């Protein structure tokens, strides 16, 4: 074992980044092999917060297990819930009321916006600029308050139930969303001035953490990571769910494959999310927010797989049902897990500082990887 020696025969230094490290955003543990400051190998060690959500779900009913999935990718908890609900609904073949669909999509996009805002601040912080973090949190706070108004919680909302959403929208929701959009648009130039246009930031990200399109497919990179490499992988466009096929929005694709491309994809996605919200906010149909469902849900025997686009990429929910009231086996194909597997490939040959930029633009959320 080379790790036990602290060095290998070529005199390379083996150093731990994490589990308690300021830039791993949680308890990711990377063992990196350095030659000078050049990275030769990155090996993730996982499992520090593995809670075996898949096993937990096996003993929870189809209504109950959805809330657990909020704790996977806590930054897009609503979208995780959405994926699970869609899978259950696919099994039960329930029609979702139009109002519930619109509400779900609106909340999805707000969640995505909040997640990307946090990512933006955290990335800048990883690269040494502290101030942008506070600016992005100011805007994110507004979204959290919107969520709190309607769902009663800020992060793990548990707003989605099979068949619709748990509660109707708050009466102030539309007004507050419009107010948020107006404020956000007036502040967005600061994002360009502080980070996007900053020459140091550009130099830190351009050409860093490169992954080609072929490798991105092979490594299963999805979401902004895949789209930064020119891979069209937006589930909302490719396999539209809910009302995404009726909406006008662009799939942001950059061909650079480096951290800068991934950065631009995410920033572009923020704009697209705003576009979706703007389209929907005045057109929320009246009607029921929840379809009538039985008290105890029982999925028919078989396999069900749904995919949704979380803020980090493609989330797959795979339910194997034996016909009972609890799932027989659940597998979550989490986007972070596949994206992390490409980290070694991306960061080889770079400096330690590059690793931070690569990790930052992969937007790793550790509970999503560990589940």
């Amino acid at each position, binding site marked *: 074992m080379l*790790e*036990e*020696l*602290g*060095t290998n025969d070529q*005199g390379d*230094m*083996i*150093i*731990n*980044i*994490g*589990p*308690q*490290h300021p830039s791993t955003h949680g308890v990711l*543990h990377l063992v990196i092999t350095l*030659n*000078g*400051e*050049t990275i030769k190998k990155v090996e993730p060690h996982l499992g520090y917060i593995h809670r075996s959500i898949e096993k937990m779900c096996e003993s929870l009913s189809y209504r109950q297990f959805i809330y657990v999935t909020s704790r996977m990718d806590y930054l897009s908890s609503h979208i995780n819930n959405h994926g699970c609900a869609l899978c259950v609904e696919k099994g039960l073949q329930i029609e979702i009321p139009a109002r519930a669909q619109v509400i779900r999509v609106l909340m999805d996009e707000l969640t995505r916006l909040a997640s990307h805002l946090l990512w933006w601040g955290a990335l800048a912080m990883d690269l040494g600029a502290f101030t942008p973090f506070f600016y992005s949190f100011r805007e994110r706070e507004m979204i959290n308050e919107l969520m709190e108004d309607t769902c009663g919680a800020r992060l793990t909302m548990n707003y989605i139930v099979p068949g619709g959403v748990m509660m109707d929208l708050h009466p102030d929701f539309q007004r507050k969303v419009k107010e948020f959009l107006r404020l956000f648009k007036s502040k967005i130039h600061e994002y360009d001035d502080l980070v996007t246009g900053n020459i140091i930031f550009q130099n830190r990200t351009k050409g860093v953490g490169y992954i080609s399109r072929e490798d991105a497919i092979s490594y299963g990179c999805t979401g902004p990571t895949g789209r930064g490499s020119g891979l069209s992988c937006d589930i909302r466009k490719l396999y539209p769910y809910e009302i995404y096929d009726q909406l006008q929005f662009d799939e942001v694709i950059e061909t650079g494959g480096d951290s800068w491309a991934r950065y631009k994809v995410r920033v572009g996605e923020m704009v697209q999310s705003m576009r979706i919200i703007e389209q929907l906010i005045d057109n929320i149909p009246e009607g029921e927010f929840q379809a009538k469902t039985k008290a105890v849900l029982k999925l028919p025997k078989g396999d069900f797989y749904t995919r949704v686009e979380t803020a980090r990429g493609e989330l797959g929910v795979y339910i194997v049902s034996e016909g009972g009231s609890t799932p027989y086996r659940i597998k979550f194909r989490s986007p972070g897990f596949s994206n992390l597997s490409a980290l070694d490939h991306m960061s080889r040959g770079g*400096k330690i500082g590059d690793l931070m930029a690569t990790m930052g633009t992969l937007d790793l959320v550790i509970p999503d990887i560990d589940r």
Partner: protein
Amino acid sequence: MGATSLLILTLAAIVFSAGGILVSKIFVKGSQNAQKGQAYECGVPTVGKTWLQLNVGYYLFALIFLIFDVELVFLYPWATVVKEIGWMAFLDIIIFFFILFLGFLYAHKKGALKWM
């Protein structure tokens, strides 16, 4: 005050630092356990020795710095008398910088200025 001031300032620095450390030594009653003595490596025990052979690239900077800084020291006496000497000093410095620049180019071409 003259050169004695250096002695006084050095003493002041030592008194200040040692005083602070002593005060904290007096006040703090530490406990001892095995974990306290471990080096910090993100919560994982450090394995192996830290004092490795480092890449020679790190030391190249020191060497290049040495060369350039010695040249820089030569410039100080020159700088004080530029205005008195006039154009001759200007010619001197151009020749001096030309040689320095050649050395700089050489170091650059050899890749000595690249970080490892």
